[in-house]
């Protein structure tokens, strides 16, 4: 099936889903599953479309390998998350519009990845932004939508400026052609590079644009947070790729000053990526709301992705592309488990939960696998991608960036463990004694995503071969993968072997466990209490400020939120000033202005 038909199908499926929802809400929600799965299949089977060009209305499309890869991730996340939609239909204020916007934003993302010209790119970019903006306030915060939209439009306006600027110089909007002239103009290229990539930075949530992620991801409807975090954030990575891959950044900056071998323009952004990792990690560590915690972890992971993409080389870039996939599925799965829990318990606060493992074991296992993958622990997919990124950084000797990378990955142990301990483990509050496990339909996507994390951790070649083709298609050396052995100049990784060894170790350990004397099962309250008598499980649960000694170290940190809050207040004050200067209800003020200006003209204007 041709992809122009795919895009049309996706747009019409959005409308159709709206109409179906109008007659039957549940059916409409199921239709989102159906339509997104059909789109997924069409896209997956339509790989031979790569290289095709087509147009719809005034928009032009070109199917590229990397666009196909991004679209696949996006539709995968959307279709998996769609399984949760039916359970939220009664809770959402505008269910039909939700279903419409859900599928419509999906269609727009696919259009974005296949854009052949910059205007098409921008159109779909903005469409995704506004269509998702209207879903966010259906959740817990109205402010979140405004912040999300504002930050996004800061990025998109900067990018629009770059697009127009490039057009005025090169006379074309074609993505492949428009940037070519920059190769010989380093100064202009620097300007275009920074303005064009801004939209990407805002979307990935790179410092200082990261503040919308915890707000929007944390407060969006539970069924949309996975899409925001797993899916839409990746659009930013695509823009970042265009900024270094299509915009000939390295060629243009070849005469620039370099820092540790990297042109300073690119290094600067890598530093921003590194700051995002550190800030995201530190903030994630102190969150009580799991959704905000995972949102901040998306900030940190966005830092890795940006750094990898900016390197534009054999290893790190491949790692970054793989990390895009791994992070998408892992963070979506993590958000889905939280949604499953919130579906039963109506809260996402760690301090209000505990012991969920005894009620929702499947959610627990899925969450565990996902966060292990997010933290980059073998044998999950996230390990392979982080390994590649770290190897790439080491091979260039970028120790400051590498510092952030390690801080982020070890810090991630801290923050992924916090919900694990506070939400899933520990004491089960009596009020949750009778809750039911998640439904079967909810389990489907969770299990699929978790098994993908494991599968691509053990057999990364299925992913890395595709990535290698992408690398070839954009003219950089493909990642070397032979069987399941990944080879970089500094080392090799055979994931099969690592998984086998892990399995071996686990089996031995299991055998040791089994041959030893059996143990007696006791309740959770039957524990050592320093001779106190405790009868309230809620009180005997450690979940508040989990890393208190560590959090104390940076409790007075400066924050972008506070700064922007002040900025908003200043803007409003400026508005009030403008009001009193120009828009007073007293005619005399305006007359004074008119007279003052008229006098000025008479005095000085004549000779000019």
């Amino acid at each position, binding site marked *: 099936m041709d992809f122009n038909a795919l895009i049309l199908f996706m747009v019409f499926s959005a409308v159709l889903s709206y109409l179906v929802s109008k007659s039957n809400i549940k059916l409409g929600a199921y239709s989102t599953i159906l339509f997104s799965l059909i789109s997924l299949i069409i896209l997956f089977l339509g790989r031979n479309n790569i290289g095709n060009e087509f147009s719809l209305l005034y928009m032009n499309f070109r199917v590229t390998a990397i666009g196909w890869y991004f679209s696949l991730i996006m539709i995968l996340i959307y279709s998996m998350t769609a399984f949760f939609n039916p359970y939220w239909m009664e809770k959402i204020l505008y269910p039909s519009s939700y279903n419409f916007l859900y599928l419509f934003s999906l269609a727009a993302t696919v259009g974005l990845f296949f854009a052949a010209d910059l205007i098409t790119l921008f159109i779909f970019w903005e469409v995704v932004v506004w269509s998702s903006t209207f879903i966010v306030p259906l959740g817990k915060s109205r402010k979140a939508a405004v912040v999300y939209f504002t930050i996004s439009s800061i990025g998109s306006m900067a990018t629009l400026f770059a697009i127009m600027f490039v057009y005025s110089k090169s006379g074309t909007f074609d993505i492949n052609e428009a940037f070519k002239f920059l190769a010989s103009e380093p100064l202009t290229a620097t300007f275009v590079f920074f303005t064009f990539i801004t939209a990407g930075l805002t979307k990935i949530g790179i410092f200082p644009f990261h503040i919308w992620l915890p707000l929007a991801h944390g407060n969006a409807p539970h069924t949309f947070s996975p899409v925001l975090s797993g899916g839409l954030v990746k659009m930013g990575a695509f823009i970042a790729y265009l900024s270094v891959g299509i915009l000939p950044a390295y060629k243009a900056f070849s005469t620039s000053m370099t820092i*540790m071998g990297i042109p300073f323009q690119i290094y600067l952004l890598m530093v921003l990526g590194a700051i995002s990792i550190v800030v995201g990690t530190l903030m994630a560590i102190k969150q009580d709301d799991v959704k905000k915690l995972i949102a901040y972890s998306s900030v940190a992971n966005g830092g890795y992705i940006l750094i990898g993409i900016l390197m534009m080389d054999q290893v790190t870039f491949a790692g970054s592309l793989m990390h895009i996939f791994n992070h998408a599925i892992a963070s979506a799965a993590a958000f889905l488990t939280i949604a499953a829990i919130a579906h039963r318990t109506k809260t996402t606060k760690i301090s209000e939960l505990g*012991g969920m*493992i005894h009620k929702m074991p499947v959610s*627990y296992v899925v969450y565990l696998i996902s966060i*292990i993958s997010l933290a980059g*622990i*073998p044998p999950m997919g996230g390990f392979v991608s982080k*390994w590649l990124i*770290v190897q790439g*950084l*080491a*091979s*260039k*000797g*970028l*120790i400051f960036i*590498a*510092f952030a990378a*390690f801080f982020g*990955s070890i810090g991630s*142990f*801290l923050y992924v*463990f916090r919900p694990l*301990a506070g939400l899933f*483990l*520990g*004491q089960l509050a009596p009020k949750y004694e009778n809750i039911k496990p998640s439904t079967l339909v909810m389990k489907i996507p969770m299990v699929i995503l978790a098994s993908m994390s494991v599968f691509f951790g053990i057999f990364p070649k299925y992913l890395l071969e595709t990535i290698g083709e992408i690398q070839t298609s954009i003219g950089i050396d493909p990642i070397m993968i032979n069987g399941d052995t990944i080879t970089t*100049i500094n*080392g090799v*990784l055979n994931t*099969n072997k*690592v998984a*086998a*060894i*892990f399995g*071996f*170790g*686990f089996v*031995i*350990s299991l055998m040791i*466990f089994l041959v*030893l*004397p059996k*143990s*007696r*099962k*006791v309740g*959770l309250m039957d*524990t*050592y*209490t*320093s001779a106190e008598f405790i009868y309230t499980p809620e009180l005997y*649960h*450690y979940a508040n400020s*989990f*890393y*208190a*000694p*560590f959090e104390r*170290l940076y409790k007075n940190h400066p924050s972008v939120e506070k700064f922007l809050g002040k900025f908003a207040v200043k803007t409003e004050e400026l508005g009030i000033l403008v009001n009193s200067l120009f828009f007073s209800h007293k005619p005399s003020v305006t007359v004074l202005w008119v007279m003052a200006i008229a006098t000025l003209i008479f005095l000085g204007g004549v000779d000019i």
Partner: protein
Amino acid sequence: MNIMNFIYAFLLLVFVFLFQTSITGINRKVMARLQRRRGPKWYQQFIDIFKAMSKSSTTHGWIFDFGVIMALGGIMATTILIPIGPFKAFADVDNIFIVSYLLAVGMLGMAMSASGSGNPWASIGVSRALTNMLAYDVPFMVLIVSFIYAFKTSSLSGFAALQQGAGILGWNFFRFPLGGIVALICLQGMLGKKPFDSFIAPAEIASGPMVEYGGRHLGMLFLLHEFSTFIEVSIIVHIFFGGGATPLEFMVKYALLYTFMNIISGVFPRFKIDQAVKFYYKVPLALAFIQGLIIIFTGLGVS
């Protein structure tokens, strides 16, 4: 990868268990002498482990058991990756990042199990342990990155091979003294020895991560502790002390280094957890950066 590899791996595990547990026993003795006690017998550690394993125990649910199994499994898997001198159970898996991340599986498993007990004291202990990890691992990894950049390898045996043949002064510890100091400080943190042992704090804090364990769980965690000690010390021996051209050479270096770290531990008081973090992010991290910059920009000591 064939069946022989797994047999070797199993033998390696057995060997490491015997070796490390004996060394631990000896070190208990050394420590006692340092504190002017007589100390236990050198095989006391074996007795402790087997005794714990043979006792009955209680469990707090499947995650309590599963966590322990996962922890020991992960750590044993990591142990298999470690070369002993030239001997390796599997080829091409002793990559430092694989080792350090796979090590984390074990840590996570143990943390999960501890929290799964439902005892908040265990969770508090875990939170300390993880914070500690954030402190010591980062400076060490920064150092490792500059080494990888300099030597174009990231495998433990690769690092060791590059140092062999030039005598003691060929060891990275002497070629990169700043880095060597950082590595030893970090090793002390990894081992959880004083002054960085506040997450276990065996003498003062009655309840830490291990509070709920007894019987087979505790026995397995003892095992886990031996294996993880072996992994951590071995990493440093390989990267900074030239590994071993023969297994024996490696074992000697290993024993000396471990004893040395223990003796240091014996004479130090203890940092609070936030003090430890502050310390690691001031001194070792700065030193690691300085060493890294020296390596990257001047190449001093590399060739």
